[in-house]
């Protein structure tokens, strides 16, 4: 059974003048354990909205999202929060480390929402995770004392410390130089592979997107498999493309 499935998912917002604005429409996507998926798209194409839906941070206005076969719309807010904390890890473009906290505190923060032995051993677990991302000697450094690459590695450690089954990376290399970006992606790949987690990366960078097994482009609210995009398809319009994206999910 897929870990996460999107069936005909759409997201429409209401503008200030009450007119609807469709961001996403008819998205079908299936994510299995160990998948490597990349999504590229222009600014405003709905990449982050898709990421929010995948991360249970937002709800679709049409279609359904199933997590291990269960309809997520039936989840209470609390269950969504708990599921997100337990099964989904986020890596953000701007790292979003907690200001004023050390690397160790940043990585151990998600473990504050754990229970049992994991909660009580959170510092040791966080230190071990920082060791894995090569920051064992920077445990006491605060974000301002770390380089961009180091900050993103802390963010990666923080996203993975609860051993999520799905890692959502939003422009993870957007604020890094090419070389550091490659290093961070290699690290993400390595750790995701080690824990058999699915990795969904949203990026502008074709070389980062190319690392994924499945590559998609978001355009006009639809998700299109990269290998199906042809000049002929582009001329046919978004409805056809949405159908095609469903065939590839």
């Amino acid at each position, binding site marked *: 059974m897929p870990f996460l499935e999107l069936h005909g998912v759409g997201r429409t917002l209401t503008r200030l003048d009450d007119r609807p604005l469709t961001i996403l429409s008819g998205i079908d996507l299936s994510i299995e354990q160990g998948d490597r998926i990349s999504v590229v798209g222009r600014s405003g194409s709905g990449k982050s909205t898709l990421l929010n839906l995948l991360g249970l*941070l937002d709800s679709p206005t049409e279609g359904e999202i199933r997590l291990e076969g269960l309809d997520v719309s039936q989840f209470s807010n609390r269950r969504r929060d708990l599921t997100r904390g337990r099964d989904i890890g*986020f890596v953000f473009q701007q790292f979003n480390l*907690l200001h004023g906290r050390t690397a160790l505190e940043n990585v151990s923060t998600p473990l504050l929402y754990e*229970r049992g032995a994991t909660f009580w051993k959170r510092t040791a677990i966080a230190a071990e995770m920082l060791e894995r991302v090569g920051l064992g000697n920077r445990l006491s450094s605060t974000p301002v004392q770390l380089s961009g690459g180091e900050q993103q590695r802390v963010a990666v450690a923080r996203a993975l410390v609860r051993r999520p089954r799905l890692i959502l990376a939003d422009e993870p290399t957007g604020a890094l130089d090419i070389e550091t970006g490659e290093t961070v992606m290699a690290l993400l790949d390595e750790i995701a592979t080690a824990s058999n987690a699915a990795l969904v990366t949203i990026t502008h960078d074709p070389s980062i997107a190319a690392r994924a097994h499945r590559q998609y482009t978001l355009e006009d609210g639809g998700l299109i498999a990269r290998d199906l995009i042809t000049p002929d398809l582009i001329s046919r319009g978004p409805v056809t493309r949405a159908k095609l994206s469903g065939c590839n999910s």
Partner: protein
Amino acid sequence: MTGLLAACVGSVIEAWTELRVHRTRVLLSLIGVAVAVCSLTSVVALGDIAQQATIESSERSNGRPAALSLSLQSQDDQPTDDALVQTAWTEALTRYDVTFASRIIPRQVDVQFVDGVAAVTSTMVDPAYGAMHRVSPEHGRWFTATDINRLAPAVIIDERLWARLGSPDLALNPTISLFGVNPVTAVVVGIVKSPPYNLEPTMFMLNAAYSRIESTLQAATVQPAHPAYELWVPPENAADLMTHLQSDFTATLGEGTIVSVNRQDYAAYGQDPNLSLKLLVSGVSVLLLLLGALGLLNISLVTIRQRIQEIGIRRSFGATAARVFFAVMMESVVATVAAGIVGVMLSMLLVKSPWATDLVSQGATDLPPFPLEAAVLGLGIATLVGALAGLLPALVAVRVKVIDAIRY
């Protein structure tokens, strides 16, 4: 259960980390709370000391609750029959099982000093007088029943008289010479504080001892006795006893003597003498506390708006709305409790400082310990202020949309 414990501990850790990271901001906002808690706690504690001082002062002059005073006045200006009165007094004490009672007779007694003879204002009392009027000697001791039969009468002198005698060591059993036809040597067994209202030396002597030596003193110093009779009885029995004493003495002494029995202790008036002062200072403290809470609330709200992104990030880790609400509340409560503890500690230092104690106690001897209820009140109010000041920011934090917050 362990999950709940982890959630609670986790929330406290989150709150504490937040306070540590923003310590300067927190410190500034909590100064007002700490000062307010300190003043409120100090008011309660100093109020207790002041109240005790007032009570002791009142008890020293009028006796402890319930202090009954019996006075006798002849309608035809003829002196009352002392022997008859004494018999009635002794019978009444036995009949009503009164343990603490004293006749009080003021006298002027001539004392031989190195520079001549001087009259000393003296009060003849029974041994129970000391307990009834909170007389606690600075040095030596108060009278005991064994002092009644001493050949050399025991006296308790005040500090002025002691100084005039050259402040002799009590361990050497200093004596004073009571001047008279046949001078009498008395032994000083205790020294009490000089009453602030009297600049002349004073002393106490037992009635029984004085009655034995009265005839040997100079005729000029012998004055007619106008004894006052005082009793210290349980307050719940006071009203009945007053009625019984009135009727018993009237029956014994006849209609020609006006017998009046009154209650003279402070409790008879049933009002806290410090009530208005306490209300005033408490009002000021509460106002100060409200200002402190308002400042805290203001800063908390501004800070929450600055922390929206951080709250969004925490929500992305799996922090539930309830957890965020609790953490923000805890942050405020932990901060104000810490401020409350500081406030209470400052208050203890202030209240227990010799300067404050001397200023408020006015010579009270049984100083109450730092009142536990004042500390609890201070901490309780600090917690309440923290909870109230944290409620609004916590509600704002819960309403934050995760998606918007992360991109804030």
